[in-house]
Structures are given as structure tokens and as C-alpha cells.
């Protein structure tokens, strides 16, 4: 990478996180940019209850065929390394969903619930070991989740189809402790992490936050996204302090 290009990239990242290139060069040994993919599980108690209610209101003997299983999780982060710890910012996205379904020769009823979750936040970790396989860190994420839940109802009866639906939103705060291992290969790095997120959710609402969703049984509902987070990622050191010449 040309020096000009590195200077531009470091300046952009440090500007993004509110530090100057000079300060970055003064305090941090290295700055990494990385992306990762992984797998996330979700508790989703409230939405599972909504599914049960939908099932009970079906005119026929339907079935819950899909109930918010674990799914892929994607993210990216910029971290600043000192000799024994790192801090940084991250953002990411995950999703899951559910379905209640009935079909026979005369038609079908499908009730889908798709949950999309965008998150961002801060990350910090402390090195607890340095092995031949790589450095091992323990740390935590502090995250904000922006959730959207899309309800879609579709019916096909005697070859006549109809679909309707609506969307709900909510906000979660989460704490996600994790253990991470990474290994460098020159300016590149490979990392893997395992963790669990604890969520503190707000009630689902329609477009207006004051207009909360109330289920048929009269309850408010949340996106309970608590669950395990497992991921692997690759990164690139966009800045590395040069060792002082002796």
C-alpha cells in the first residue's frame, strides 16, 4: 500500500473516532480494520408467544413451522491496539424469523414474522495470554440494537390469493462479553470470538413510538435477542507504529 493511501485511510478512521492522526500515532501501536461473520441465537420469548396466539386464531389446525432459529451474523469493526488491550467501534446486522402455516387442497394460510436487527457500539478487550497460536483477549461489547419486525399474512383460497402485513420497530441495549483470539500475518490478521449477549429491550411499536403493539392477549412484546454469538473475521492493519531505530 502506498504511503499516501495509508495516510488518507488513517486520517479518515481517526477522524471517524475523534482522534487525530497525530494522536493515533502518539498513543496506539496499531489500528486494525476488520470484518467478521458468525452465528447468533435468539431467545425471542415474546414473539414466540405471538406465534402461539396466531396459531390459536387460525380457523384450521395450523402449525408453527419456524420459530426464530439462530442465523448468520455480520459485522465490521475498527480497533486501536496498545500493547495489552484494544478498544474500538463496531457495527453489524443479524436476522431471524418465524412462520405459522396451514395448507390443504383448497388453499393455505401463511403467517410470517421476520426480525431484522442492526446494531452498533463500542468494543474493548484485555489481553490475557499470548501463545504461539495467537493472542487471547477477554472483553465486552456495549451495543445498541435497532430492530424491525415484519408481520406478513397471506392466504390462498380456491386459487384466490391475498396478502397483508405490517411492520413494528423497537430498540434494545445489549452487553456482550466475549473471548477472542487473533493471529497476525504481517499486516493481515485472522480472528475468532465466542460470546453471549444480554439484551435490555424496549416494547415494539408501530411508526409512532407512543403507539405500542399489543398482542391479542393484551400484552406488550419485545424483541428478546439474548443469545450466543460466535464469529470469525479477517482484518488489516491500516496503521502500525514504526519501531524506533537504535
Amino acid at each position: 500500500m502506498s504511503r499516501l493511501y495509508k495516510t488518507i485511510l488513517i486520517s479518515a478512521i481517526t477522524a471517524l473516532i475523534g482522534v487525530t492522526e497525530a494522536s493515533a500515532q502518539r498513543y496506539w501501536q496499531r489500528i486494525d480494520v476488520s470484518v467478521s461473520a458468525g452465528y447468533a441465537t435468539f431467545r425471542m420469548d415474546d414473539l414466540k408467544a405471538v406465534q402461539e396466539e396466531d396459531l390459536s386464531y387460525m380457523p384450521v389446525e395450523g402449525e408453527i413451522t419456524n420459530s426464530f432459529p439462530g442465523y448468520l451474523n455480520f459485522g465490521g469493526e475498527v480497533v486501536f491496539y496498545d500493547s495489552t488491550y484494544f478498544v474500538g467501534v463496531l457495527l453489524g446486522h443479524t436476522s431471524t424469523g418465524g412462520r405459522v402455516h396451514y395448507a390443504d387442497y383448497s388453499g393455505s394460510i401463511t403467517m410470517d414474522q421476520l426480525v431484522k436487527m442492526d446494531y452498533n457500539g463500542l468494543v474493548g478487550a484485555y489481553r490475557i495470554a499470548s501463545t504461539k497460536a495467537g493472542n487471547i483477549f477477554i472483553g465486552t461489547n456495549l451495543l445498541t440494537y435497532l430492530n424491525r419486525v415484519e408481520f406478513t399474512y397471506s392466504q390462498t383460497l380456491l386459487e384466490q390469493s391475498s396478502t397483508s402485513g405490517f411492520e413494528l420497530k423497537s430498540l434494545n441495549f445489549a452487553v456482550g462479553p466475549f473471548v477472542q483470539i487473533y493471529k497476525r500475518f504481517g499486516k493481515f490478521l485472522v480472528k475468532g470470538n465466542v460470546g453471549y449477549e444480554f439484551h435490555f429491550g424496549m416494547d415494539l411499536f408501530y411508526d409512532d413510538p407512543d403507539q405500542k403493539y399489543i398482542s391479542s392477549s393484551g400484552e406488550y412484546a419485545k424483541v428478546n435477542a439474548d443469545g450466543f454469538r460466535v464469529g470469525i473475521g479477517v482484518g488489516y492493519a491500516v496503521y502500525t507504529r514504526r519501531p524506533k531505530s537504535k
Partner: protein
Amino acid sequence: MKSIVLAIASFLILFSCDYEPAGENFVVRPQPDATGVSVELTDTSDTLYVLGNAEIRYSSITQNRPVLWFRAYLNGELFGTHNQQSASVFLYTPNLSDGCHSLRLELIVSSGTGSLAERQGQEEIRIERDYVVCIDNSRPDPVEITSIRRVDGTLELAWEKSNERFFKYYTIVKSSFNQASQQFEIHWIKDINDSETISLRDSTFVGGQVKYSVSVGAANQQSEGSEKTFVDPYELNPTWEWVDNNNNIKLTWRRTKYYKNFTSYSISFSYSSFDDRTFSVTNVDDTTLTLDPQLPFPSTKALTVITYPFVIDNFHHEYVYGHSDNIYIGKDFPWYRADIYEDKSIYNETLDKYFAIALTGFKTELVKINAQTNEIEQSYELIGISDILLSNNGQYLYIAAGSGFFQIDPMTFTFLQYIDLSALCGSSGGYNWKGSISDNNRLALTNGCGNFVLDLTGHSILQQWPFEQKSIEISPSGAFVIRGNEILKWNSSNYVSVGNTGNTRQRIFIQNDAKVLLDKSSHVDVLNLTTMAVEHTITLDKGYNLRYDPVSGLLGGITDPFTSQPRLFNLYTLTSNEKVKEFPVAGGVVLMNNSLVTPGYITSLDHYYP
């Protein structure tokens, strides 16, 4: 650099790859099948005959499928709907022409597959069935009543058979002649559904006047009714007589000829008698009843006898009744003026006549009543109510009037003379004389002027006590006068004191002046006028109208009506200390001529004291 761009691009692609809900729950259901589903009219062939409005009954087989609709169409027009598997709809035909029409039944049931479409009400099975409806709204022809006659103790009604093709029933209406309102009133209505049945035995008839109507019904059409009246008079004519030594009455009435319809004779008393006893006789041949009338002299009561036939269905009882003549003790007697406190009627044994004051219309009359026939023989008009003075030997009859007395011939009831006594009192008085007359025409008098004993034959004053107003009474022979409490005896020139009575309410000379009865309210002393000694004392119940009857030799009077209920009549003999008989009476009864007498009625004392 290329690798970084490639990594970011891959990330963005992955970033857009959201979860997609999946899964299918396909349930295998049977296809709709109309096999075994049917609808039909109940108990009807392919052609239905309708007479007037009709109830169209249908039934269906649905193989447990829910019925969504049943619809009935006449000539393509919907006239009835239902949602039951088996029910009925009504066909109103007044605006339809007589003749045959097409009837279509349409049954719509759910498919019963349990599919989504069935559950959404969009999958159904439709069954149709066609019939022919023939309508006939013409009015049926009437039938005539052929006979009404008594048969085997009941009443049989017969009529012509109806030949209506669509016959439904005969309607029989019975109307009875109400004895009270004197008009026919419907008693019962009966329908007979069998056209072959053309007679009816009426178990509700026991006699009298009845009217039957027979009409023919076909659908909602009814023929004109043919009517016939039947009369078989049944007068119960209840009569009564005294039996069992006048203790009971025996009631007799007429038997009904309709013995098979008979249920009971009911005997009760007239409402005004306040006797609510009712007797029932259930043997049609038993037409007598002996009962205690519980009838105090001189009250009256009538008996009502009702003959009841059977009651059918929920209709009211039909019956025939009759009233007896009034039942009373004794015989009729002229009405005269008296009450429970005072009765001035007189029986004179010598003449064998009663004398009393009667009010006849607007006239007050002295009447003489034959003691054998109890009929008024003669009357003499009076001016106002007066005292009657009659000597025991029946020779002297005087009526107090004004300042003197009229003398009337007791045999001919003709006026003899007027004796003006105003001279006894001067110009200041002389009215309201009270007195008694002896067999020798001596008159003992009293009023405010004093006491006098006059000899009306010699027109002289025998003795007087001016301005001393005391009760005074002369004995039948004229030998004694009781003035106040003093007993005076005639010594050929004067009445001189021979004894004292004490306080008395009434003095009654008896046995040719041998004795006098001194009524002292609580008792009667029998005083011997020869010895002036009380021979006997009879204890009295406090009473009124105490009389001594020389014919029977008994004393009698009624108890105080306000202190004794029921009012009693007491009988005493001159030899017993207490009453010998008491019995209830209903009015101011007095004892005379061995009889009990009251205005309107008389009975022999034997009825109570044989």
C-alpha cells in the same frame, strides 16, 4: 488493496442476506362428496295436495354435515327458508290459483371436509328435489245434522258424511241454553278427524235445551255450519217435607233420563241463608236426601239441586238446576207489627182468635185472625198505634184512642161507642191511657192524671187515686187489682189492700185469678192470691216477651239478643224451678195458643216441645 475491496464487497453481499421464514404444514383432507346427502318432504309422495295454507314439512339426511340453508321455492319464487335438518315452512295460498305448481326444495350443507375453504364457508354441497303442489282453496260443502235423540241414557248426534276429497275434520259445536241468561252459550267445540265418523254421543247433556252445529273443515276452509236445536225439558222440581219428628227435611227431586251422562246431584242452600253446606249424591236413581235444615224459627232458606253430567276436556261444567220453595218451620201467618222487645198480639182462648195490629199499606189496622186457618177474618182501621184491651171472656174489646177508648164488638168488629175519659183529668189532660179490662167490664187505667178503676157497664168510677201514677192491672174476674206493688181485692164496695208483690216487671193473672205470676226479670214468683204466699219460684234467663200460655200451661220468652248468641227461646213450666227447654230462634217470637208466633209465621210448640 484489491483484497480489501474484495473483502468489503463480500461483506456487503452477506450483510444483505436476511433470514427467510420457511416451513410447510400440508394437511391431507378428503375431497367434497355429496354421496348420501338428500332432502325430501315428510310423508309425502311426489305430488302434494294443499288445501288452503299448508305446513310443508321436510327432512334431510346430511351425514353429519351442518345444514347451512334449506330453501323452498314455488314456481321459482322463494317462499320459505330454514336452517334445521328437519323442520317445516309455511305455504300461504290465498293469492295462488287453484291447480298444480312446481315446488323445489333446495338443501345446502357444509362439505364437512374440514378444509380451509369449508371452514371459511366457501365449500358447500347443494341438493335439490322437485315436487308438484296441487292447490285447492274451494270451500267444502256443508253436511246436515240428521238426528238428535236420546239413546241408551245418553244423547246421540248424527250427521251426513262428508265426501270432500281433502277432508280434514268435522267441527261440532255444542251450545247450551243458559237458564239464568235465557240464551244459548257455547259449551264445547270438538273436532273429529275421521270422515267416516258421523255420530257423536254427548256425555255432557242431562236435559234441557241444546243446540248443535256441524261443519266440515278442509285445510283452512270451513264449510257453513248446519244447526239443530234439541229440547228435552228437565225440571228438577225439588220439593221438601218435614220428617223425623220435624227434626229433618226430606228433599226430593226428579231423576235425569240421561243416566249414562250423569255424574252427581249436588244439593246446596241458597246464598242468603249463610249455610255453606253442600251434599253430593252420585247415584242417579237416588233422588232424595234427608238432612237437618239447621233452620231456626222463623227463618227461611231454599235448596238448590244441580244435576251434573260429565266434563270433557277443559270445558266448563254444564248442568241443570232447580230451586226448592222456601223451607221454614210451621205455617204462614199474617204479618203484624211486633219486634223482639215488644209484641202486643193477643190470643183469646174463648174466641179462639188472635188479635194484633197490622200495617197494611199505609193503614194501621186491628186484625182478627182465625186460629184454625191463620187467616185474617176482620180488620178495623185505627188512627195511629194503640193499646188493645180485650177481656178474657172475649166480650169486651177496647182500643185506646185520644182521651178515651173505642169500644169494638169483638165478634163483628163494629164500632159500639166511644168512651171519653177527658172528664177524669179535666181540661189539662187525659191522653195516653194504659189499662186492662176484666171480664165484668171493669177498666183499670193509668196516665199522668192518676190511677182509676171504672165500671164501664155502669159508667161509674169505682175507685181512683188522682195524680198518683202507678202501674195498675185488673184481674180477669175483676176481683183483684195490682196497683204499683200493692195487691188490692174487691170487697163489694172497694178494692182494699191484701198483699204486696214487690218490684215486678209484669203481672200475669192465671187460673181464674187463683194465682198471679210476678215477673221479676231474674225469676218469676207464683203467688197464691188466696193465701198471698209465693208457691213457687222459677229462675229466668234474662229475656223479653215473656208470656204465659194458658193453652199449654207454659211460660216462654226469648233471651236477650245482645247478650246471648244464638238467640234462644226458653220454656218454663209452673212446677219446675228452671227452664225445661231451650232452642234457637231467629226473631221476636212469642208463645200463644200452644204455638210460637211471629209476624209472618206460626208453628206449633210441638215442633220443639212435643
